[in-house]
């Protein structure tokens, strides 16, 4: 572990596991609270985490969430094994979704997940290979006054 890394943790999320959707966001939130991170940063990262978790549950087979805290940044890299996204530009637009009725019944799948993650992040990147999976990176800066 590089000396700059204050905390690093990996979580696994399984596709279709609606029952546990939200547990990664909750675990990371608890860690950030213990570290005394500013509430606004915690809220923004938690929203991004939860949307990312629901995306994995709805669309992928499984994914690893690598969560890292450095003195100025909280970052998450989500690497999934899944169908991939053929047209990222399309998927990044609000309202664009391939969700099923079941996903919508659970309050998700309206095509707001990726835009919501980007909106709540200070850094955002997505790469996808159709038939292999998607890698999503997002980060929230830690405000100096925190």
């Amino acid at each position, binding site marked *: 572990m590089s000396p700059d890394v204050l905390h690093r943790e990996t979580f696994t999320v399984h596709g279709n596991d609606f029952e546990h959707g939200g547990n990664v966001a*909750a675990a990371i939130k608890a860690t950030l609270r213990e570290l005394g991170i500013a509430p606004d940063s915690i809220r923004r990262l938690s929203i991004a985490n*939860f949307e990312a978790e629901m995306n994995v549950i709805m669309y992928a087979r499984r994914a690893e969430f690598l969560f890292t805290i450095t003195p100025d940044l909280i970052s998450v890299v989500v690497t999934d094994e899944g169908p991939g996204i053929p047209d990222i530009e399309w998927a990044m637009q609000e309202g664009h979704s391939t969700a099923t009725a079941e996903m919508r019944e659970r309050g998700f799948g309206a095509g707001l997940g990726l835009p919501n993650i980007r909106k709540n992040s200070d850094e955002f990147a997505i790469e996808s290979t159709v038939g292999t999976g998607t890698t999503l990176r997002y980060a929230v800066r830690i405000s100096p006054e925190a």
Partner: protein
Amino acid sequence: MTDLLELLRCEVLSGREQLDGFEPTGFFAADLMSDVLAFAHPGNVLLTGLTSLQAVHTADVAEIPAIVFVDGKRPTDAVREKAAHRGIPLLATHYDMFEACGRLYEAGHVPRRKP
């Protein structure tokens, strides 16, 4: 909070002790949890017809201090347990979403305007 309980004739399903002296920053109503995550303000009470676990997770990450289920809907015991664990009180009203929102609005609970 007394106002909310009376206006919507709420039944407190769980977390009654956390409601004492608690004042919401406002209200937000949606069945779509991504809308709550995108647009609700921290401290807003959520009115929803969605009784799944995802409603509780959403409230937790979006700093929603309490959930009101509309239309007489009731969550399962698993959902109640999760909410208790996360410290989020659950309430229920027999009013439907439209009337519940209308009663709050009429009583002066007007949303904070965007600048």
